[in-house]
């Protein structure tokens, strides 16, 4: 069952009709519906292309949050071999919103860390919808530290609505955990490559994405605040999220123009969820390229370049 987004409703109708016709033909052998169904398919394909040609920022947010979008777990399973999950922050707990462990990317041994949102009610609750608590960031810090000591590149996959706003999370130092994770990213003497695969939600994303190279999927978003949050503060009306999404410049395309990200990874027509195998292949190619770029650099260069990359960020605004 395809899950359609609100703006895809007309498309849902056409694709639904084609599906119905085919179902009918399966029960009734005399009916020839292929011609009609093919015409509907063609119409649907044209509409899909049209819808995704110029996605508004708010629609991109919806695509980035699509429930069927491939999540961290899918990428880890498809892109790496010998994935060996490592758990716990050695202080309090293991946060299931953050996955991480040793893995092999091609021949390279790496440390992979990412936010996992879950795919059904049970796993979403288990993963806390990808909203990490301090122990999640502290686990990430521990794994980055481990990678650093053994000279393994670190790959982070970012997909979070933000860090979890909860009582226990605050008591255990959510802010401090995020700040330390960002600091750890800046201290790493190994390559750090980050890919924003869905939502890059504020500080919870920065804690993983203070990287030598940051790539974003074509329809992913990265922002200081959710459009809804921004709308309720600045417009005093959470329903103004379309305007807020526009104003925040949170799309991969805008962030590339601002020099905040280094590469955009293309998605299949209709978004990553329509052809997960395609987007995973695209991520593989991008990751391979980005890691190869950095593989020759020594510790000092990696640290120095990462620092100056962030120091010089924002020197230019968007052209008028």
């Amino acid at each position, binding site marked *: 069952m395809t899950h359609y987004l609100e703006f895809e409703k007309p498309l849902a109708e056409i694709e639904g009709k084609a599906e119905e016709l085919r179902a009918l033909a399966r029960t009734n052998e005399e009916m020839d519906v292929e011609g009609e169904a093919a015409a509907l398919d063609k119409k649907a394909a044209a509409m899909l292309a049209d819808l995704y040609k110029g996605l508004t920022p708010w629609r991109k947010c919806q695509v980035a949050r699509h429930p069927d979008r491939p999540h961290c777990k899918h990428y880890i399973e498809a892109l790496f071999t010998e994935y060996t999950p490592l758990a716990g922050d050695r202080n309090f707990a293991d946060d299931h919103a953050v996955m991480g462990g040793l893995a092999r990317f091609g021949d390279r041994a790496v440390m992979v860390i990412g936010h996992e949102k879950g795919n059904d009610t049970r796993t979403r609750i288990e993963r806390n919808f990808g909203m990490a608590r301090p122990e999640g960031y502290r686990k990430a810090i521990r794994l980055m530290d481990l990678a650093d000591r053994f000279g393994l590149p670190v790959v982070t996959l970012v997909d979070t609505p933000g860090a979890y706003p909860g009582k226990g*999370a*605050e008591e255990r130092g959510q*802010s401090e955990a995020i700040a330390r994770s960002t600091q750890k990213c*800046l201290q790493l003497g190994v390559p750090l490559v980050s890919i924003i695969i869905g939502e890059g939600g504020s500080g919870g994303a920065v804690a993983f994405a*203070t990287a030598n190279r940051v790539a974003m999927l074509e329809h992913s978003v990265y922002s200081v605040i959710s459009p809804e949050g921004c709308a309720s503060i600045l417009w005093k009306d959470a329903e103004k999220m379309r305007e807020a999404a526009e104003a925040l410049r949170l799309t991969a395309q805008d962030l590339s123009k601002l020099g905040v990200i280094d590469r955009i990874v293309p998605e299949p027509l209709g978004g990553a969820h329509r052809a997960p195998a395609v987007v995973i292949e695209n991520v593989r190619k991008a990751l391979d390229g980005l890691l190869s770029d950095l593989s020759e650099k020594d510790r000092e260069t990696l640290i120095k370049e990462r620092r100056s990359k962030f120091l010089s960020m924002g020197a230019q*605004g968007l052209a008028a």
Partner: protein
Amino acid sequence: MNWISNYVRPKINSLFSRRETPENLWTKCPECGSMLFHREVSENLNVCTSCDHHMAIAPRARFAALFDGGVFSTVPVPEPVADPLHFRDQKRYPERMRAAQRETGEHEAMLVAQGEIGRTPVVCAAQDFSFMGGSMGMYVGNAIIAAAERAVESQSPLILFSAAGGARMQEGILSLMQMPRTTVAVEMLKEAGLPYIVVLTHPTTGGVTASYAMLGDIHIAEPNALICFAGPRVIEQTIREKLPEGFQRAEYLLDHGMLDRVTHRKDMRDELIAIVRMLMRLGPAVRGDLPAPDPVEALAKPAAPEAPDTRASEPAEEAKPE
């Protein structure tokens, strides 16, 4: 006498002194509701004389009370690109900026200064909550980087007074990028072996807490300051339960191990002097009424390229007696 001294200077002075002349002579304490004589409150560093509630204090007033003899020189901050995203909500961002500048008489939400406390050279940065909620954008990032660079250059500690609602939404992703940028500044101090002391004041929340405000060598907070990542309202909406009394207040954070100390504003200067001198392996400060350091000496320090901001080029300012 020319038009500058006759016209421009009074104009500038009136801009600066506006907030020091109250519309009436009384202030109401927002906590206990007592009517307080304005002069008494400002002499008491904006702490309520009846209930000890710590009200906001502007960076200039704080520095005037902090530095020896109230003498300090401002450290120039590189001016960032204005309105980088052409942001517009119900108002345009530049309009909001101008309104904040008019209201506060300040240029932006952070002031960086250099001077001496207890005859110990320090660099200080203070965030101004009255300027667009103290929000962290490119300018605040530049200010913290400039402060760290000046501290490294002069081999002196950095004391940072935080106060902010978080990142400045009008600068979108670039405000978010101040989290790693300011963390680089903290790294510079760490590498240079210089103390970085954070004084968390009311309120310090969001991306500010989740970056430079929680990376200090020592964390001191003012009493009852709200310090958090997510605000209490957001948490209550998420977990749908009432939060305990004093949740996310300075004393609560102290109990939960996030702070070293909670210190009354009137004791802050002495405490900072003691800490800084011990960390810098200097002898105890000489107690007594210290005269202001020789302004010529203060001037002789190498100055970074002057910022276009006219106030930044003033070498030293004497605190006006209130």
